[in-house]
């Protein structure tokens, strides 16, 4: 009985303690936010002048909280800057020891510290950290690997193309994160992706082909044509999508043939691609698909046809066998 009363008192005391902590922390945070806000206001023009000036500006002498806020501002600006400003930002972080500090944290026992360091290094513009970030792609924690990939993309580290692709393919990196890092690296990644498009693994082939479509140019279309006959449906879909993105006119006939593929996703991708490559022959082939195929390919074909030849869609929509997709496309054209 007495124990019960004690437990009740403990609960009430715990509540009071929480309230005291809550009030104290609130006051502390309010003060912190005020100080930080003032520092940001004061240092923003200094940071802008530092990264934006034509003449090399000397790095300002800052200490403690000022230095932290200035570093945050530079890191934020680094995400949207290139060229000479990058060199200045990198020089600042090298001079203040920021880069070495983060490199040290990259080996912390705590995963969130390693992830934060890997992320922050991407904003410090110092290319010497690339080998360390590449090594971080093998970290046991996915968040660290993702942050490292993002930073490698930000730093334009073309030497990281191979490990990024390897990590994405092995599942070490989510497809979107690895893909985005490779997109940041741009066309230099394409030759290796072309090699990988011949891999024995369908997932590797489709991933590589998808990225070729995003990074490549019309000249990269030819090796993709064969993949429209790949045994794996996912590869055929990726190939059709990539050919559409590359605007490969020479792929038109192969894409028209792909409209007869047995897998609806492939037919839909081929229809979308034909909408991007255009042409009379594509329009002729798309019309029957838009009329009578199953949902996704028919919708894709109707939209593609509307893109190539809007008048033909409007005319076809009046026909009795037009189907819902042509009618929708026609109505949208009329808008």
């Amino acid at each position, binding site marked *: 009985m007495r124990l019960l009363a004690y437990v009740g008192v403990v*609960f009430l005391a715990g509540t009071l303690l929480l309230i005291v902590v809550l009030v104290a922390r609130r006051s502390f945070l309010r003060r912190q936010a005020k100080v930080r806000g003032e520092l940001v206001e004061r240092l923003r023009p200094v940071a802008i002048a530092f990264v934006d000036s034509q003449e090399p500006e000397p790095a300002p002498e800052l200490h403690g909280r000022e230095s932290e806020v200035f570093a945050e501002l530079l890191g934020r600006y680094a995400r949207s800057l290139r060229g000479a400003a990058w060199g200045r930002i990198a020089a600042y972080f090298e001079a203040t020891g920021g880069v070495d500090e983060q490199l040290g944290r990259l080996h912390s026992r705590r995963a*969130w510290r390693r992830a934060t360091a890997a992320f922050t290094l991407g904003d410090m513009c110092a290319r010497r950290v690339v080998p360390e970030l590449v090594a971080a792609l093998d970290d046991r924690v996915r968040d660290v690997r993702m942050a490292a990939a993002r930073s490698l993309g930000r730093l334009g580290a073309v030497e990281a193309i191979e490990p990024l692709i390897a990590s994405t393919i092995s599942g070490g990196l989510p497809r*979107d994160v690895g893909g985005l890092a490779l997109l940041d690296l741009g066309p230099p990644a394409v030759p290796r992706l072309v090699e990988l498009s011949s891999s024995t693994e369908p997932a590797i082939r489709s991933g590589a082909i998808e990225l070729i479509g995003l990074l490549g140019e019309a000249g990269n279309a030819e090796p993709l044509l064969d993949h429209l006959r790949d045994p794996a449906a996912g590869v055929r879909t990726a190939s059709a999508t990539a050919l559409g993105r590359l605007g490969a006119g020479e792929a038109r006939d192969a894409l028209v043939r792909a409209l007869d593929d047995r897998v609806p996703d492939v037919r839909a991708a081929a229809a979308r691609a034909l909408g991007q490559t255009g042409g009379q022959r594509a329009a002729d082939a798309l019309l029957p698909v838009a009329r009578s195929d199953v949902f996704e390919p028919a919708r894709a074909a109707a939209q593609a046809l509307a893109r190539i030849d809007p008048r033909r869609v409007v005319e076809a929509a009046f026909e009795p066998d037009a189907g819902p997709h042509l009618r929708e496309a026609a*109505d*949208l054209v009329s808008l």
Partner: protein
Amino acid sequence: VTEILTVYSLVAFFYFLVLNGLYLFLTALAWRDMGSELRARRYLALDEVFRSPLTPGVSVIVPAFNEQAVIVDSVRSLLALRYPRHEVVVVSDGSTDRTIAVLEEEFDLAPVRVALRNGISTAAVRATYVSRTHPNLLVVDKENGGRSDALNAGVNAARNPYVCVIDADSMLEPDALLKVSKPILDDPQLLAATGGTIRIVNSCRVDYGRVVDVRAPRSRLATIQVLEYLRAFLVARVGWSSLNALGIISGAFGLFHRSLVETAGGYWKDTVGEDFELTIRIHRHLRERGEPYRIGFVSDPVCWTEVPEQFATLSRQRRRWQRGLWEGVRRHRRMIGNPRYGVIGLVAMPYFLIFEFLSPVFALTGLLITVVWWILGGLSTFYFIAFLLVSIGLGLLLTTAALALEEFNYHRYHRRRDVARLLAYAVFENLGYHQLHDVWRAIGYLDIARGKTGWGAQPRRGFGTSTDPLA
């Protein structure tokens, strides 16, 4: 009789201790997870997701039945979401007010014969519209068939691989869709669905379809509901999610693979707890197929919603929730205690039955018997006071811990007086509201016994005046 009443009083008290012990455990899990989530914000890279051409599209589905007061603000906030590729699908479920008319006027709708999938059967669609000014706005006008039917029609109309379901009287924060979809984008093979936090918009200042000034509600009833929602979302959902046993993705804010919803059969129409039922069915579907999966909860993205300020409306809502809970548990009763369904079958489902559905029985009878027995002299005054001390102390501790979680991690309430008001209501909540709430839920048993169906009227006040940020 004396012995039976004493034993029952102790059993009820033990039940209460176990239930609150579980809440304390969930609170501890929530504190641990919040810390990780807070640190992870430093390297979340939402901007990268936003600019990536690889980010898949999301269709935001808004079922609406007589929502003329709020629908325009709601749609505006959804159209202004920061997401690279999203469409808004409003499904008017046979509205008899001006829901369609106000949308037509505000967004310049034109009738378009949109092709709809027929994967899930629904009541007949009367017409479909596309906005001339916002091409990513699609409006479906259909015969009345209930909320589930409207959601299914929205899933059929959705043109993107993911669907995000929200209520018409709700507003998403600009980054909410990006934040709630990030875990799925990072791990699409594993994550089947995610949900975000629901917060209460009553008395907040809303402009341009966005909450611009967060305030504690002026209404007493709404203020207490703020505390309930904090406990439900920042504590319970986070805790259950970390156990991979999240049993409900709120119907007001959830993201799903569209194909998964279709494969699972869409929303069940014969329930008023369609969100709970679908979440459990997805668990069941994926467990029965032996597929690895997670249903996650992300506490940072926020959906603002209006809550009832009248006792009668709130009572109806809670009775409906009780019915919905029963319908879901009953339909999936074979999962209860079944090891085939892992932690969801062994922990979450028994919890829903014993500690959610049956809690009014134990709470009310336990309290009643204890009070009566004390009055009759069967219990000592010391025991009675100790009983009250533990009950109120534990309730206060749990609510304050939830409020502290909110303050430490999100700090949405900037005014000191708002936080003080919420703290004060943590006391009032334990002295009357909880008991009233249990009475409402107990009346829910009668509704179940009578075979009651349907939602009942839900009056809307609207969010306040605003203009279109996209115009």
